[in-house]
């Protein structure tokens, strides 16, 4: 089958610059930078001055339609679901495509359990020797935690929640935990649409590297350069064939001419780092979503996994 032209008809973003794609895009165009703060959990440590990006107010309950699903969600899941919802609504995904013909291709970041889920469990698991006791963990610790903890820390959960909320039932890939992996998700999405395996693809990523334990990990392993700071964020786009967008009279934000991922010997490079912060697994998705708004053009970044992601975008013809 000949590869078809692929266009983006839906964009969704949550970043420190804005809670939606338009607000993030506006912030980016006017030169806005993320608000930052230090983390109280790191007070008194060598990282007490380490900053993280601050997200705007989010109405997750209102936008995702109730609290029931939120109890299953990590912070990254919430962000991913919000961005995916915005992209899906922008493209009228549910109204226009059969669920079986839509795929999800996504990247997720490092696991991050909420302190409120973990601390009670650990408190109940400390023995007389003041150390962790496996016996007490089994006897009392488990009972003290959120029984849905596994859903919050399993890396595939954010996109699976997206599939449930957006009723997407087609092919799928979920990669983790760095930029290059989300780049692979975009490449798979683009190819699946171009070769007709799916009619539409939700492609994106969500990450919360601003979580205290993750900040420690990133700093310890030198994954943030001087002046860089981690930010939570998410981005999703809907890709479909130009033909279906035209048929349904949908506005195409951009045409995706090519996406690829290659091993690279260069150091990590993220064009969003200075103003959005390092969003790692979310970065390729946010980069593409931003590039689908004017000015439209090619984007590239190189992840800490030493893989270079490139997407060639142009004005839709």
């Amino acid at each position, binding site marked *: 089958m000949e590869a078809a032209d692929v266009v983006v008809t839906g964009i969704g973003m949550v970043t420190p610059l804005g809670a939606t794609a338009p607000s993030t895009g506006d912030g980016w165009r006017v030169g806005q930078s993320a608000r930052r703060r230090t983390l109280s959990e790191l007070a008194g*440590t*060598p990282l007490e001055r380490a900053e993280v990006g601050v997200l705007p107010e989010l109405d997750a309950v209102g936008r995702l339609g109730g609290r029931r699903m939120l109890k299953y969600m990590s912070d990254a899941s919430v962000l991913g679901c919000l961005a995916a919802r915005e992209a899906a609504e922008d493209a009228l995904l549910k109204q226009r495509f059969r669920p079986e013909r839509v795929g999800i291709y996504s990247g997720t970041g490092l696991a991050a359990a909420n302190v409120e889920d973990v601390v009670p469990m650990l408190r109940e698991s400390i023995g007389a020797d003041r150390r962790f006791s496996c016996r007490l963990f*089994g006897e009392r610790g488990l009972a003290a*935690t959120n029984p849905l903890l596994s859903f919050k820390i399993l890396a595939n959960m954010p996109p699976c929640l997206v*599939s*449930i909320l957006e009723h997407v039932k087609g092919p799928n890939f979920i990669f983790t935990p760095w930029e290059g*992996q989300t780049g692979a998700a975009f490449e798979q999405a683009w190819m699946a649409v171009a070769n007709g395996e799916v009619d539409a693809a939700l492609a994106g990523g969500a990450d919360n590297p601003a979580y205290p334990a993750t900040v420690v990990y990133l700093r310890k392993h030198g994954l943030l350069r001087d002046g860089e700071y981690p930010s939570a964020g998410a981005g999703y786009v809907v890709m479909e064939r130009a033909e279906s967008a035209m048929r349904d009279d949908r506005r195409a934000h951009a045409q995706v001419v090519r996406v690829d991922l*290659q*091993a690279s010997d260069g150091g990590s490079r993220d064009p969003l780092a200075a103003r959005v912060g390092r969003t790692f697994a979310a970065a390729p998705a946010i980069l593409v979503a931003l590039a689908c708004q004017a000015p439209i053009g090619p984007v590239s970044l190189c992840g800490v996994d030493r*893989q270079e992601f490139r997407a060639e975008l142009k004005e839709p013809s």
Partner: protein
Amino acid sequence: MRRVAITGFGVVSPVGVGREAFWDALRNGRSGIGRISRFDCTTFAVQLAGEVKGELALPSEVADVAADDPKVGFAFAAAREALAGAGVEELSAEALLHVGTSLEAFDLEKVIHNGEPDFRAVAERCLSGEIQRFQIPLDTAARLLCETFGRPRQALTNCSACAAGAQAIGHGFRSVRSELFELALCGGFDSMINPLGVGGFQLLGALTADNERGPGACRPFDAARSGTVLGEGAAMLVLEPLEKARADGKHILAEVCGYGSTLDAYSLSAPDPDGDGATRAMRAALEDAGLRPDQIAHINAHGTGTRLNDEVEALAIRRVFEGVWQHIPVSSTKSMTGHLIAAAGAIEAGACLLPLLQGMMPPNPSLSRVGSGCELAHVTGEAAAFDGEYVLSNSFGFGGQNATLVLRRFDGRG
């Protein structure tokens, strides 16, 4: 499109390390499930798992990480065996590495300092180097494989839960078939046999607490099944273009010829009771392979031993293979290996090589009375003879991700 050959297979499993030991155990119905020895499970309701036994002779830099995260060592050992079997010394720029895994390793002990969960103290100890590893990212195995065997054009880590291993193989297959890559090293690795892994799944009610049953506790499709048993290990395949493999004089184990992937979009913890997602995954794989349902001669079921999963899978198999399912033998090797989560799809692809290479289908030794709704042509008791051409393997994951692979006996013709 090109035909895709399996030229290498490596495995680390609860029933044996190395492919001959693995196949021998499956052929003889030997279970690797037993009481957990990895940690003190005395107070856990769930006390069984399929643990890997024996030493893996890992290089020191891998052994060092594996001491904190055993699954990394499993991945390395399985990849090393697969590459050696395929006669591949190096992953080149024409190669794809795609591995599946599921949950990061966390050391709960390290979070406690002076008798309290103290994150600040942990942070300081991490930053000072007193704690070397607190969180081990899921791409660690891929990174170590690249450092040892060379850098492929893409190195991917898939985290699609129980479907991850099958997805990695499916992607590898399609990438080689469509000439995007000349070689794929793909598979899965996992171990959740730690307090948080076992405890977390215990809380979800997914694991059997029928500890008295020991090796026979994982009972896929049995009327008295009461949950799955966690296993651990890794399996890796080397995939190459069939014509090239033949020209190079390689021993071809089998072909991969079909892959299907779907989502339930129903629930995080339970399959769609209608079996729609599973049905579509199998049909997509058959269509991808260009096969009719009656051409499948053997199925390796996902078969977890949980009440709802088995019933839904059986329903889906009967629907896809309507009119012929009574004649398609079904093996459920989790009865012996336990559920290897992200490695399950890969290790079960390896189990499918047993009938294709040795003409024997593994049994489901713990199945004594088929559960209501689980009616299929189960292979029970002992291994059964096989002389078919195509086999199908299912992997259905937590979160509603489904993946199906179709493998073919290599007929000697290129």
